[in-house]
């Protein structure tokens, strides 16, 4: 994992999305706040200026009115109080006039007007003071004339003051207009800022949703494919976030191992089916051979009985020969012929038995191979168990991961809702995986049970096949004995035939020999019966083996059906 990929996780993607939102919103909020605060400052400054201008303007108007009133009043009622009022009002006119002068908002024309106002005020004040002095001296006429002179600048002063007040009122209107304009501009700025923030939030949200949703959708699709039994390798677009990449890697490794196992199971079941088919063919062959043996043995048995009864007849005849020696040669000749017949038969049977022995050896090889393959299958099923354990562990981890993802999604709040759904899906997937693993485990248990039965049957079949070997050897040995005995009979009979006429006294001896031969023939008959019984028993075993081979074939078929629908 490279350094960059370490940061390519859902957590980091969501965090980056959040950071992008914050980084986008902070300057926007800052612009909005600064726009609002600018308008607030502007309004406050404009209103403050307006307030001061209005206060000064009102003050100068009131002071000028007071001054003129007191000045005129002193001419008719000369009291120190009125004089004092006049002087106080005049002084305050200068104070207000200076304040007006120092206000920053005045135009140069207004400044000149205010300066003119000061000059008018000075003239009016001087002329009224002059008139007052004349009045104090009792020169009423002169005082009246001076007052008339004073009234001209006084009237102009009042007019000027009023025009300044009007100017201020116009300025107030202009200020209002400026504020309205400023408010309109700021409102546009704020609206623009809001629109920008909405666009940025939408873009970041969509990008975030896409960066999380696409890989999750891909993964869900791949998981569904797995669930449907398609274990081919996943092909996922683009780069995955770290958590999903781990999940993808785990699922990929699950798929790879499943593919290996399915291929192995398919091959093994094919091999098992082939083996079972071989076994079945061999069983059929064996059954056929056993039938032949039985038939042959029945023949042998019948011949032996015939021989016994023939020998009995010979002995009677020999006893009769003792008396009827002439007929001896004929009888002997018949005995020779019979012996040759027996030897031929015995030789035939011995050859057949040799063939049967070879078949039995084949059967033993096949049975032993089957037993080895069954053991191999048992080992394979043990591997499946390990693998199921792995699946269970992976699904448990997936479950835990999905739980963590759900918690993270809950932390992410509204933006995590989509991811919460995905996390729930992943958890369902983990549950399904666990369930599927359990089902596979059940199937494997069933297969193993059946295979164990097959193994037991194979073991018993192997024992029985092993027992057949010595039995066949016994039969062969007995047949050899028969052949040698017949040869001896032939030689003896030949001797008898050659020497009967000359050696009648040997008749007793022949009778003894015949007795021996008769006993041997009886023993041959019982041996032949024994062989027949063994052959029958072998036939039964072969049938049983065929049945087991059939069961094996069916198990192999079931196994093949189980993996047939899986795509690897």
């Amino acid at each position, binding site marked *: 994992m490279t350094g960059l990929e370490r940061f390519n996780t859902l957590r980091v993607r969501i965090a980056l999305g959040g950071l992008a939102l914050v980084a986008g919103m902070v300057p926007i909020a800052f612009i909005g706040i600064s726009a609002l605060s600018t308008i607030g400052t502007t309004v406050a400054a404009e209103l403050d200026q307006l307030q001061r201008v209005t206060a000064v303007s009102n003050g100068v108007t009131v002071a000028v009115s007071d001054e003129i009133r007191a000045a005129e009043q002193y001419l008719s009622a000369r009291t120190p109080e009125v004089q004092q009022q006049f002087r106080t009002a005049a002084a305050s006119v200068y104070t207000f006039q200076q304040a007006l*002068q*120092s206000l920053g908002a005045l135009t*140069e024309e207004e*400044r*000149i007007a205010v300066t003119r106002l000061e000059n008018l005020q000075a*003239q009016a004040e001087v002329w009224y*003071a002059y008139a007052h*002095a*004349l009045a104090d001296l009792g020169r009423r006429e002169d005082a009246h004339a001076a007052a008339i002179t004073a009234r001209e600048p006084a009237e102009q002063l009042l007019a000027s003051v009023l025009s300044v007040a009007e100017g201020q009122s116009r300025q107030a209107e202009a200020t209002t207009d400026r504020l309205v304009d400023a408010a309109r501009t700021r409102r546009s700025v704020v609206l623009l800022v809001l629109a920008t923030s909405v666009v940025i939030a939408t873009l970041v949200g969509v990008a975030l949703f896409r960066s999380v949703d696409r890989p999750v959708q891909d993964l869900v699709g791949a998981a569904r494919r797995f669930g449907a039994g398609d274990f081919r390798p996943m092909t996922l677009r683009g780069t995955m976030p770290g958590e999903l990449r781990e999940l993808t890697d785990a699922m990929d490794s699950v798929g790879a191992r499943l593919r290996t196992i399915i291929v192995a199971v398919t091959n093994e079941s094919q091999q098992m089916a082939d083996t079972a088919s071989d076994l079945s063919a061999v069983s059929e062959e064996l059954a056929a051979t056993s039938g032949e043996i039985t038939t042959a043995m029945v023949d042998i048995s019948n011949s032996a009985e015939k021989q016994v009864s023939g020998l009995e007849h010979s002995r009677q005849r020999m006893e009769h020969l003792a008396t009827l020696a002439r007929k001896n040669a004929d009888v002997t000749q018949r005995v020779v012929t019979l012996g040759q017949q027996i030897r031929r038969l015995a030789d035939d049977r011995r050859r057949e038995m040799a063939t049967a022995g070879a078949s039995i050896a084949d059967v033993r090889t096949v049975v032993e191979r089957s037993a080895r393959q069954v053991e191999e299958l048992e080992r394979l099923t043990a591997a499946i168990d390990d693998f199921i354990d792995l699946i269970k562990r992976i699904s448990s981890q997936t479950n835990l991961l999905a739980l963590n993802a759900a918690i993270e999604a809950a932390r992410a709040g509204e933006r995590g809702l989509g991811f919460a759904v995905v996390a729930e899906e992943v958890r369902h997937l983990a549950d399904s995986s666990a369930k599927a693993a359990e089902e596979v485990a059940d199937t494997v248990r069933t297969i193993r049970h059946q295979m164990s039965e097959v193994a037991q049957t194979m073991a018993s079949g192997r024992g029985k096949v092993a027992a057949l070997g010595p039995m066949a050897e016994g039969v062969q040995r007995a047949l050899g004995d028969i052949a040698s005995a017949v040869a001896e009979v032939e030689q003896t009979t030949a001797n008898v035939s050659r020497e009967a006429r000359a050696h009648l006294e040997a008749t007793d001896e022949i009778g003894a020999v015949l007795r021996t031969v008769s006993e041997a023939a009886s023993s041959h008959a019982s041996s032949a019966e024994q062989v027949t019984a063994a052959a029958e028993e072998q036939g039964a075993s072969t049938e049983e083996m065929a049945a087991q081979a059939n069961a094996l074939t069916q198990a192999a078929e079931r196994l093949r059906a189980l993996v047939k629908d899986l795509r690897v």
Partner: protein
Amino acid sequence: MRLAAELAVREINAAGGVRGRPLALVLLDDSASTQRAIQVARQFYDMPDVYAVVGHLTSGTTIAAAPVYNGGATPLLEISPSASSPTATHGAPYTFRVCPTDLLHGARLAAWARRQLAAERAAVLYLNDEYGRGVRQVFTSSFTSLGGRVITDDPYLPDLPSFQPYLERLQRAGGAQVVMVAGTRAGAEAIMPAMRAAGVTAQVMGGDGLTGLEIDGTLISSAYLPDRPGERNAAFVAAYRRAYDSRLPDHRGAGAYDIIHLLARGLDAVGPHRDHLRDWVAGVGTETPAFEGVTGTIAFDENGDVPNKDVVVGVVRGGQLVTATP
């Protein structure tokens, strides 16, 4: 003031100018009118090659022009040689002056009247403008607080028909030992014959607005007198007399002379730049050493005033103003 300023410029250019360039003087007349002063200020303000204004002469014109110089994007330095109104430089960072305020003039004259002349009664005639009202107000309050009484306190303007009624009323009220003329030389020249006509025999005194008055015995306060001791002043007075037909410089000329030399030094230090020059001037006496001029030591405070400068009381003798002796 114009003559002294031209003398200073000639001296500087004769010595090589400022940074090798000659100093030029642009002259505009505000006619002591506040309305005209505003227009003149605008003209100066709009000349990009003007880095400082020497003026205006009176308190009224200085105050009226100050908003023009201190406003806008390229404020212009204004140093007045004689605007003595207490508030003339207040709230105007580009407005300075090199003279003491009326507070000092009014206070020194009131003290002189009470202590040297032992006057108990005073009459005040004041020119009804910014300057006259300022001097009058300080004199009245100082004289009263020193135990004297102000008997009459009357305003005038140049077009007043006669001072007779004011003086007659004063006489009826019992007269006064001093008549304080808080105005100009022209006002004093009209008042003094009227006093004689009304029989008022008081000592006439006034602030530096009376400078140039040639009536002997009149007491005039001034920030500068030509007989001020010191070699620099002696050299300046001698040069002035040589250049201008043996006439003597007054406080306005001496102030303008000092301002020109101060500005030349500032331009040499920081170059032709309005803001840099203003900041350099504001630092004289704090960041840079105080300037030793013919009018005394110039060191500005935060208002652009020279609080360490004093006012002397002079007396007219033989048509010349000389330092008065108690």
